[in-house]
């Protein structure tokens, strides 16, 4: 049975709790472009482990608070 991993994130929520930090400010802190932050936030790009740590570090939280993952089975299409 094929299983699909999907990386999810709480970046929008974390930005809100960080005094509505802008995407540009987060991009500067993580050392990437604003375009990349937009793509990650929208779930269009899964960052490398290093970048994921840098983003979590920018908010001062653990990586598991910033990123999570879902496993979807192809048959049921439900979360495990």
């Amino acid at each position, binding site marked *: 049975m*094929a*299983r*699909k*991993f*999907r990386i999810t994130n709480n970046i929008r929520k974390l930005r809100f709790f960080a005094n509505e930090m802008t995407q*540009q400010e987060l*991009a*500067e802190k993580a*050392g*990437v*472009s*604003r*375009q*990349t932050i937009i*793509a990650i936030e*929208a*779930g*269009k*790009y*899964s*960052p*490398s482990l290093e*970048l994921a740590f840098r983003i979590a570090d920018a908010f001062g939280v653990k990586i598991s608070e910033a990123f999570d993952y879902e496993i979807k089975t192809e048959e049921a299409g439900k979360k495990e």
Partner: protein
Amino acid sequence: MSYQEKKTIVSILTGILLLAAYCIYTFSRIQSSMASLEDVKFWATAMLMFIGIGIVASIIIQIVFHILLSIAIAIKKQVQNGKCDDTEIERAIELEMVEDEMVKLIELKSMRISFAVAGAGFVAALISLVMGCPPALMLNIVFGSFCIGSLIEGITQLYFYKKGVKNGKEV
């Protein structure tokens, strides 16, 4: 539109212009009977010439593009903040032109497609020789496949910038 998208559009336009210039140059030569499909030396010379022109034109166009983009960023900063110093403008330009891991991944993925197109073109060129077509046609197929591969690379990059790029794994 991001800096990367603008840069890719400039590259695509440069590629289209060069390909058009090559087609106009060679067709005009054929029409004036100054060249033929049997004259391999003419085609090789024309291709070498346009490869050289292409490299120089790409460098010049990219330099001009970066100058214009820097000016645009500086003007935008001045308008937004009223007055800002050179270091602030330089920092804004640096931030705009960041090349991060997503950009590199998109470049790698699109380059793979470009190589596939060029490879398919090379095979098609060899097949044309086997079928008894003139060698000049083979040269043109190879040259054309590299040009089209480069254009497809740019279009693929634009697609990935818009739609995103995934590393989804199935286990």
